[in-house]
């Protein structure tokens, strides 16, 4: 299974054509996706048309970019002009956006091919993809287990090689956690690095689109295309985009790596702890200097997140009311009943839970105690990281406290929320984070190492991850699917 970088090289040398590659991906999806169920929508026809066009450009020696003709999977929370975008929710089951998200426009301009839209937890709320209104996605390493979430479809597609790379979105860990569970690379860029225009909002101040790929170089190639200021997103930042792939070779001699002491918690899977410790040793061996740092407000981050994210979600999801698009319940006597029934039928239990939490947190008389206080905690979390980054260049820790669990295993929502305990503070602070494979459990399940960087310093983050990846064999392993 070639990487994106390898595919590009084969295209340019004429060794392969995008049409052949896209056809073989479509064939592979047909064979394997009934087991994995990564995709909710396949765009076979347009994928073949895009591949053909890319082939002509490559043949003429005028490819649009290093991604020209590269087949990708797109999380179904990113709006695609003319292609159903469901957010894995019944309420948007038949919603066809009349416009492209900025990242889609950028991928399109780079010549990338979209194979289809991937499954996810409904409205990106969840950590297992079991909250999809349609069906759960399975972990390619063990089909009895979840792929993580909410970008579980994208992570599973990449891990099972049902796409060369993918886009996901990350609000509290939704790229990094499934990347860890599926043994792929997942990058959550700095808040403001990638345009959110066309990303169906879950929690606006936390959401960020990012790539999932099999290697750090592939992730860098994808990030290169989607990053940058967008006049349509006021929260995207006008900071120049460096050449990410070019930064990869620079090595990590003297890199200061901080080890947050709060990121070792009770109940953590010992195999995860061991693999992460070994990864830190490996970084040292590559020339990095490690030191312990403290992020004392970590304990409060999860609680703050579960006020801020639902509060914003309750507002963002208010527009799904049956009036303009999406599902409308039949038989309502009046407007209020139509609203009530539409939302009762259209949203799943986790989405409803968060709308209720968020509505409560914003209500008159409770705002200061909940939303207001959570925002103050957020400031403290951010300050913790700022202080740590005065001494170190990147932080290293586990991506998740455990490896992929079995479908149906976590029934208590709180247990599920704990899956994101190491990823959530990164979103609260708006920092870039990457998860990459750092080993396997004895039963053969992938373990993720999380590296966290300074704002807009994805280059350092990616080059550290690349140095580790190149020194270890983990990224060369693939799940055995037939």
């Amino acid at each position, binding site marked *: 299974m070639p990487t994106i970088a390898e595919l590009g090289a084969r295209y340019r040398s004429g060794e392969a054509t995008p049409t052949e590659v896209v056809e073989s991906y479509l064939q592979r999806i047909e064979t394997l996706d009934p087991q994995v169920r990564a995709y909710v929508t396949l765009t076979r026809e347009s994928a073949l048309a895009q591949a053909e066009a890319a082939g002509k450009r490559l043949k003429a020696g005028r490819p649009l970019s290093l991604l020209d003709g590269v087949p990708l999977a797109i999380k179904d929370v*990113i*709006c695609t002009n003319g292609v159903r*975008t469901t*957010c894995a929710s019944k309420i*948007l089951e038949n*919603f066809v*956006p*009349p*416009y492209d*998200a900025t990242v889609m426009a950028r991928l399109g301009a780079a010549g990338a091919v979209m194979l289809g839209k991937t499954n996810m937890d409904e409205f990106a709320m969840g950590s297992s993809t079991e909250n999809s209104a349609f069906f759960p996605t399975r972990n390619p390493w063990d089909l009895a287990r979840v792929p993580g979430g909410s970008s579980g479809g994208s992570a599973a597609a990449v891990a099972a090689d049902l796409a060369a790379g993918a886009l996901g979105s990350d609000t509290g860990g939704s790229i990094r956690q499934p990347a860890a569970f599926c043994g792929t690379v997942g990058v959550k860029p700095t808040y403001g690095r990638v345009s*959110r*225009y*066309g*990303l*169906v*909002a879950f*929690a*606006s*101040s936390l959401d960020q689109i990012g790539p999932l790929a099999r290697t750090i170089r592939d992730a860098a190639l994808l990030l290169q295309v989607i990053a940058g200021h967008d*006049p*349509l*997103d*006021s*929260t995207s930042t006008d900071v120049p985009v460096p050449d990410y792939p070019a930064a990869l070779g620079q090595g990590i001699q003297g890199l200061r790596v901080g080890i947050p002491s709060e990121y070792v918690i009770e109940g953590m899977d010992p195999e995860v702890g061991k693999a992460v410790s070994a990864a830190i040793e490996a970084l040292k061996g590559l020339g990095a200097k490690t030191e312990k740092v403290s992020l004392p407000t970590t304990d409060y981050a999860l609680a703050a997140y579960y006020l801020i994210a639902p*509060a*914003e979600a*309750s*507002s963002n999801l*208010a*527009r*799904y*009311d049956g*009036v*303009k*698009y999406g599902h409308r319940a039949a038989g309502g006597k009046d*407007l209020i009943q139509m*609203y009530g029934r539409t939302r009762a039928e259209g949203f799943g239990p986790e989405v409803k839970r968060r709308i209720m939490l968020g*509505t409560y947190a*914003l*209500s*008159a008389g409770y*705002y200061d105690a909940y*939303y207001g206080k959570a925002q103050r905690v957020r400031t403290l979390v951010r300050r913790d990281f700022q202080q740590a980054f005065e001494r170190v260049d990147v932080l290293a820790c586990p991506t998740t406290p455990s490896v992929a669990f079995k479908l149906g295993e976590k029934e208590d929502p709180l247990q599920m929320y704990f899956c994101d305990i190491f990823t959530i503070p990164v979103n609260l602070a708006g920092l870039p984070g990457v998860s990459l494979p750092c080993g396997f459990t004895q039963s053969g399940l992938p373990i993720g190492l999380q590296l966290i960087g300074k704002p807009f310093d994805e280059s350092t983050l990616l080059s550290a991850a690349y140095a580790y990846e190149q020194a270890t064999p983990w990224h060369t392993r693939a799940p055995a699917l037939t």
Partner: protein
Amino acid sequence: MRMTTDYESVIGLEVHAQLLTRSKMFCGCPTAFGRAPNSQTCPICQGMPGVLPVINRRAIEFAIRTALALHCTVNAGCRFARKHYFYPDMPKNYQISQYEEPLAVNGWLEIEAHGTTRRIGIERLHLEEDVGKLVHEGTLETARASLVDFNRSGVPLMEIVSKPDLRSPEEAAAYLKTLRAILMYLGVCDGNMEEGSLRCDTNISLRPRGSTDYGVKVEIKNLNSFRNVQLATAYEGERQSAAIMSGQIIVQETRLWEADKGKTLSMRSKEYAHDYRYFPEPDLVPLKVEQRWVDQLRTTLPELPVARQQRFVTQYGLPAYDAELLTQSRALADYYEAAAREYPKPKIVSNWVLSELLRELPGDDEAALARCPIPPRNLARLLALIDGGTISGKIAKDVFEKMYSSGEDAETIVKREGLVQVADTGALASVVDQILAANAHAVEDWKKGKKQSLGFLVGQVMKATQGKANPAIVNQLLLEKLPKQS
């Protein structure tokens, strides 16, 4: 019953002004009124999944200019916030508005009412987006379907909230009139209350005269004219007064003004008041307003109505009443000044503008004057024709009407219709003779000392000459020819 003197009204106004920006508050759609439903919309103002707002810089500029004209403090930083409630005309089911950190605060404007000038405080000025419009098939009660038109959704709205400084319905109307004039002078709003470009809600409570506490306030919505503001606040003041007198308690509520019934009706009480769940809009970064920008905008402020009114009194020697009417709208004042430059008898120009011109024009706003078929220069030349003795003042009024309907200038009409005044003494003398012969009884009355007979005879001569005779010469000839009064 009339309101007793024991209580006074405490009134505050919330005015919503649609801004005259070309594009909407948070997207690039046009703002023009009266286009085909949903023809001026995009995914952003339709509230599609995934869209994001981007602030219209021009709207901020208009709001800052207004804030400066109203002597407000423009905050160095402000924030947008989401205001939540469900209604089908609002595509996101929240409105992007401003809450804790408005664009500007603490201003004032001066109003004239009851023969005095009073300074009314402005609490705050902020920006928000307008909602769409519902179109019901038939009436709201019987409609089988309702449709939504999002053309208006996202049009920039500026909300200006007064302090509760107004004390009478007349003051409330004067405040609205003054504010509207300022907005129109600034060119930020067309002031059209019928089309809803300017909307007004009022808050009113009563308190014992001399008290500094506030009573329970009632909000009245749906006031779309000065008259309705005055009538509704007067009605509500009396309703509350009657209620208090009969021992009832005023409840905090929102009432709707029903203009045709001339009364307010309860819409919702406080228990059903919305919890808007405001929180800072996470899709927009806090807005920094640089002092340099504010200073630069201050230099672009036009002369405002009060200043212009005062100048009209001193520069043109106009009565205060004329000056006030002429300066209500910038377009009318501009028209007046242009005509007065060409024909430097300011009071005469004022008479013609206020009586003849305003009778013909559909309004005094920019749109009405832009379509006025008589340019100021043509009015000035018409007036010059009277001065030169070419036509009489009476004929001039007919000529004016013809100018208005045809758009032609005065000279063309006077020449074509042969309206040039007859000032030829010889020709007029024979007409005078005929009239005297035909009205012997009037001559007799004159002889007996009845002075009105002269006016009657002048009128007869004018009639005989179809108004073309020079009245001064007719007068003179008649006096020469009439017998001496006894």
